[in-house]
């Protein structure tokens, strides 16, 4: 199902939790709703589920305007951060609950519970109660319960945040698999950029209630619209150097060398920020000089801290055995992963 949000706004008293949000979510995709804590992700999800009413704007599911529809009419499945399983019911009863309400006949109910339980891998748990399950098991039950009624839209609110690192990875794959198998349009809330990058078809990036960018992970990574988007994605975080552009060279604020820019930068002489991803540095005899401040190894990657003008940047460079701390190396920037932003507005230049 296609979801269309048009100028959606939600105010709680004087706080604007979601601010004039307009986006279309394509059918059958897994969309990650990404943003820092408190940016309005849960609020947006609850608006989609119909749990809270909008202050302004319209929401459309395919052809239906659902803005004023109550949750039970919308046909969405929702998994809460705390899973919200009914504590007095067994797993089977929990999964069965939405079907009972839809008055699905018993034999079909049993069949669908068994189908969904085997897909979510909770068959062995059907007779247990929620307080007898681990966090990961509770989550799978919650997903099974959300999916069993064959929703048009599946909403997941940080479903992995209670799990340990390994289980997170595993459950991430599970969610992806289940989503592929069912083809249900899914919105997955997270504040973890890596999680968003690894499982989603599209990332919707939010900040302070406002939509920043909606693109596939790779586009978002390689073509951020503003400084916030560039900062939020990528590990290590993107390097940022303050300065201004002069004659195709970037001069750091502290002066020193001019960095030749591999990108077109028609931005006049205003204060700007040069953002460079760690993998966008290459060793080049014809490049600009910088001093090696530190060398690390992270897993199989070699990383160096370089001093450029007054700034320190981190770069993936194969320096092992060639240069040491304190040496000067010459590098240039690749065109990919290098961006200029306005220092004041953060807009891409």
């Amino acid at each position, binding site marked *: 199902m296609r979801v269309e949000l048009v100028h959606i706004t939600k105010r709680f008293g004087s706080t604007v939790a979601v601010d004039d949000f307009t986006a279309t979510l394509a059918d059958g995709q897994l969309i990650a709703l990404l943003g820092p804590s408190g940016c309005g992700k849960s609020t947006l999800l609850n608006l989609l589920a119909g*749990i809270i009413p909008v202050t302004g704007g319209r929401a459309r599911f395919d052809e239906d305007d659902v803005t004023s529809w109550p949750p039970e009419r919308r046909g969405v499945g929702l998994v809460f951060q*705390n899973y*919200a*399983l*009914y*504590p*007095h019911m067994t797993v089977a009863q929990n999964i069965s609950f939405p079907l009972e309400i839809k008055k699905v006949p018993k034999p079909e109910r049993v069949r669908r519970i068994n189908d969904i339980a085997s897909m979510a891998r909770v068959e062995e748990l059907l007779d247990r109660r929620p*307080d007898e399950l681990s966090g990961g098991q509770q989550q799978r039950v919650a997903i099974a319960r959300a999916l069993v009624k064959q929703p048009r839209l599946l909403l997941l609110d940080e479903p992995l945040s*209670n799990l340990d690192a390994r289980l997170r990875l595993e459950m991430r794959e599970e969610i992806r698999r289940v989503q592929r198998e069912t083809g249900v349009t899914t919105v997955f809330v997270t504040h973890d950029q890596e999680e968003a990058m690894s499982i989603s078809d599209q990332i919707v990036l939010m900040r302070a209630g406002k939509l920043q960018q909606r693109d596939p992970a790779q586009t978002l990574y390689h073509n951020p619209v503003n400084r916030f988007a560039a900062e939020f994605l990528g590990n290590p975080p993107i390097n940022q150097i303050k300065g201004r552009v002069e004659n195709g060279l970037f001069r750091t604020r502290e002066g020193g060398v001019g960095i030749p820019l591999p990108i077109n930068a028609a931005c006049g002489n205003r204060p700007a920020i040069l953002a460079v991803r760690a993998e966008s540095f290459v060793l080049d005899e014809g490049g600009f000089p910088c001093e090696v401040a530190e060398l690390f190894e992270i897993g199989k990657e070699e990383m160096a801290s370089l001093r450029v003008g007054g700034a320190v940047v981190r770069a993936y460079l194969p320096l092992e055995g060639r240069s040491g701390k304190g040496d000067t190396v010459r590098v240039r920037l690749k065109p990919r992963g290098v961006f200029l932003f306005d220092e004041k507005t953060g807009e891409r230049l």
Partner: protein
Amino acid sequence: MRRTARAAIYAGLALGALVMVFPFYWMFVSAFKTTQEINRFPPTWWPGSFRFDNFVVAFQKSPFARYFVNSVIVTASCVTCTGFTTILGAFAFSRLRFPGREVVFSLLLSLLMIPFEMVIITNYTTIIQMGFNDSLPALILPFTSSIFYTYILRNFFLTVPDSLYHSARVDGASNWRFLWRILVPMARPSLVTIMLLNALVSWNSFMWPLIVIKTTANRTLPFGLYAFTTESGSNPELMMAASTVVVLPMIVLFLFARKSIVNGVARGGMKG
């Protein structure tokens, strides 16, 4: 040192329990004694022979079977109605949003200050105007809701996380379904406690029946027992037999409900 302190505590508790239980014990054994034995001095701790006839005679002298049935009808009706209105009220005051909710609830709470004795006359005239004087409905109608129980249950409902409510709504449940399928089962321990207290109060209610009931056939047990003291002459063993019949059902009810309360407390709780 700690052991003696502990022993002292247990001794104190045992003494307390004894003081509480002794009257019941005395009532129970006296109910089986003969007239001679009950008047004997020093008193016997255990009946020489069990005389079940006391119950038969008591039931013959006064229509206790009728009183018993009346009591059961009145108590069951009061508990059912109060339970129902309490659940609905608690839900409305905890989950539903409507203008003036808090004001109305505060007003209701302030009504708790007014003792029942103060409204007896008003209730009495109301019952007469409704034409229910001297009938069982007169014993039921004024006790079909309770602000205090509503308050207790509402406080429990407030501890249930919003996400359960939202989850149920998204699962397609109406408010009504959510209340009966999720909230009420979760609140079972509180509910059982409330209904038990309610049953006890209703079963033992004396003042109100005394005022509105004239006909013998409409008396409830406590009223009947009171009347019996004058009607039975001075036969303490018959009094005790009748008292046993009054007290026993509540004791049995408590023993059953206790299990349910403890089970309920052990359940519930949500991880995460």
